[in-house]
C-alpha cells in the first residue's frame, strides 16, 4: 500500500464524513420545509433568510446541551448506542460510488472510499448492524417506551431485511457481481439498459424495504412519536440524540444513492451529465421519503410483519425463480 493511496483514502473518508454530516442537517431543513409546504405552512422562517440557519441553531443547541445519563440506565451501553447508529451509517457509505471518476489537477479521483468486490453485501450488512443502535439504546434506557421501541426494532428488522436481501438477489444474479461499480457498468448503455426495466418487481420491493430500513413514515415504527414518544431516543439528550438523528438522515441519503445505483443506471457513462443525473435521482428518492411522510399514515408493526413475510417475501422468491429460469433458458 503506497502512501499516496493512504492519503487519498483518508481525505475521501473525511470528505464523505463532513459532507454527509452537513447534509444530514440540511436534510432536516428540507424535511421541515417540504412537510410545511405540503401542509400549507411556512416551516422555519426566523433564523437566517428563509430559516436557512435553523440548521446551525439546532446544531449549536444539540452540541451545547447537557449530556444527561439518567439513573437506572446501563451506562456504557447507553453511551455507545448512538455511536453505533451514526458510525454504521457512515461505514456503509464506504462502498458507495457517489460520483463517476473525474480528474482533478491531473490526478484521477475515484469518489468511492473502497471499491470492494462485495459492495452491496457490505452495505446491507453494515446497515443491518446499524439496528444495534436503536436496539441497545432502547434496551439500556430504563424506559418502557424505549424498550417497546427496541422490541419493535428487532421484530421489524428481521422482517424487512429478508425482503431487502431477496429482492436484491435477482439483479445480482443478472449482473453477476456485488460491486456497485459493476452494477453501474452493467447499466452504462443508457436508459434502455436500466435494471428497473428487467427487474421492476425487485425495484419496488427494494424501495419498500428501504422505507423500513431507514424507518421512514409508512414504516415509522421504531421511533413512532405518536405511539411510543421517541422510542429509543426518549431518554437521550444533546449530542447523543443528535447522533441518532445524523445516523437516520445519513442512512436516508445513502439509501437514496443506492437505489438509483442498483436499478436506475447510477451515473451512467460517467460524463458530467451522468453525475448530475445520479444527483437528481438521489434527490428524487430523498424527496420521496419526505413526500410519503406528508401523505401516508403509518402501519402497525404487525401489519408490517404481515406485509414483509406473507406478501413481499413470496413475491421476492417468485421473482428470483422467474429470473433464474429466464437466465437459464
Amino acid at each position, binding site marked *: 500500500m503506497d502512501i499516496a493511496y493512504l492519503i487519498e483514502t483518508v481525505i475521501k473518508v473525511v470528505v464523505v464524513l463532513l459532507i454527509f454530516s452537513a447534509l444530514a442537517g440540511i436534510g432536516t431543513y428540507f424535511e421541515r420545509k417540504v412537510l410545511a*409546504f405540503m*401542509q*400549507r*405552512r411556512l416551516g422555519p422562517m426566523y433564523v437566517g433568510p428563509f430559516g436557512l440557519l435553523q440548521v446551525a441553531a439546532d446544531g449549536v443547541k444539540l452540541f451545547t446541551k447537557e449530556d444527561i445519563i439518567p439513573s437506572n440506565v446501563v451506562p456504557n451501553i447507553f453511551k455507545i448506542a448512538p455511536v453505533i447508529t451514526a458510525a454504521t451509517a457512515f461505514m456503509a457509505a464506504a462502498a458507495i460510488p457517489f460520483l463517476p471518476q473525474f480528474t482533478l489537477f491531473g490526478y484521477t479521483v475515484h469518489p468511492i472510499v473502497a471499491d470492494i468486490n462485495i459492495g452491496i453485501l457490505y452495505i446491507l450488512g453494515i446497515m443491518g448492524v446499524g439496528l444495534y443502535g436503536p436496539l441497545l439504546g432502547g434496551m439500556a434506557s430504563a424506559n418502557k417506551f424505549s424498550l417497546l421501541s427496541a422490541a419493535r426494532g428487532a421484530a421489524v428488522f428481521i422482517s424487512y431485511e429478508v425482503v431487502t436481501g431477496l429482492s436484491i438477489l435477482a439483479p445480482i444474479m443478472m449482473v453477476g457481481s456485488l460491486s456497485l461499480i459493476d452494477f453501474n457498468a452493467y447499466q452504462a448503455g443508457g436508459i434502455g439498459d436500466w435494471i428497473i426495466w428487467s427487474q421492476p418487481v425487485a425495484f419496488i420491493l427494494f424501495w419498500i424495504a428501504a422505507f423500513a430500513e431507514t424507518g421512514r413514515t409508512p414504516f415509522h415504527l421504531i421511533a413512532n412519536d405518536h405511539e411510543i414518544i421517541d422510542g429509543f431516543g426518549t431518554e437521550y439528550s444533546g449530542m447523543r440524540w443528535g447522533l441518532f438523528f445524523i445516523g437516520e438522515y445519513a442512512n436516508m441519503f445513502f439509501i437514496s444513492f443506492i437505489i438509483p445505483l442498483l436499478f436506475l443506471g447510477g451515473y451512467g457513462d460517467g460524463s458530467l451529465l451522468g453525475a448530475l443525473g445520479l444527483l437528481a435521482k438521489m434527490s428524487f428518492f430523498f424527496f420521496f421519503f419526505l413526500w410519503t411522510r*406528508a401523505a401516508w399514515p403509518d402501519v402497525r408493526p404487525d401489519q408490517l410483519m404481515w406485509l414483509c413475510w406473507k406478501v413481499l417475501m413470496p413475491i421476492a422468491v417468485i421473482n428470483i425463480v422467474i429470473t433464474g429460469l429466464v437466465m437459464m433458458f
Partner: protein
Amino acid sequence: MHNEQFNNRNVSDNGYYLVDIEDYPTDNWGRFKRVIKRTFRGELFVGLWVVLREMIKFDIHTVQYPQEKMPIGPRYRAVHEMKRLWESGTERCIGCGLCEKICISNCIRMDTKIDENSRKEVTEYSINLGRCIFCGYCAEVCPELAIVHGGRYENASDQREHFVLFEDMLTPIDALKAGKQLEFEGFGAITPHEDERVKKTPLSY
C-alpha cells in the same frame, strides 16, 4: 371572511354526506380480495397527489404572528379604551362611577373631585387587568360611550396584577385630530339603524 356559512346551522344542505363504508370481509377470500383491491386501486398515489398539489399551489395559511396579525372583530372585548368627544376633544368620561359599581370582578377603581368649574373630574382611574374578566359590563353601562373595549389583546405581563391607567386608555389627542378614533361596536354602542328605530316619547298620556 363571511360568517354565513357558520350561521347556517342546517347541516343537511351544507354539502355533508355520509361516507360509504363497505362491510368488513368475514372470510379469507373476502380479505384476500380486499387486499388486492386496495393494492391496485392506487389510493396511496391519490394521497401523494393531494399533498404535492398543495405544495405546488403554495397557498400558505401561516400568519407570522408578531409581524402579521389576524383582523379582529369590532365587537371583540380586549383591553379598555377611553374615548374623547369628537367635537371638543375633551374626554367623554363624566366620572359617574357606574363602571366601578357594575364591575363584577371589582377591578375598576376611580377617584373624582369637583373641579373649579363645578364639574366632576376624574383624578384617578385604573383597571386591574389581572382581575378583569373582560365581560363588557363597564362598556355596556357607560352612559357616555366613554369606556369601551379595544382590540389590543396582548396583555401578557410579568406579574398577575397589572394595571392600565386613564391616560394610557385615553385616545391621544393627535390621533383624534387625525380622525383615527374608532367607535366601539359592541355592548353599549349605538346599534346600526338606530335612527329608524327611535320613537317619539309618548307624552300624550
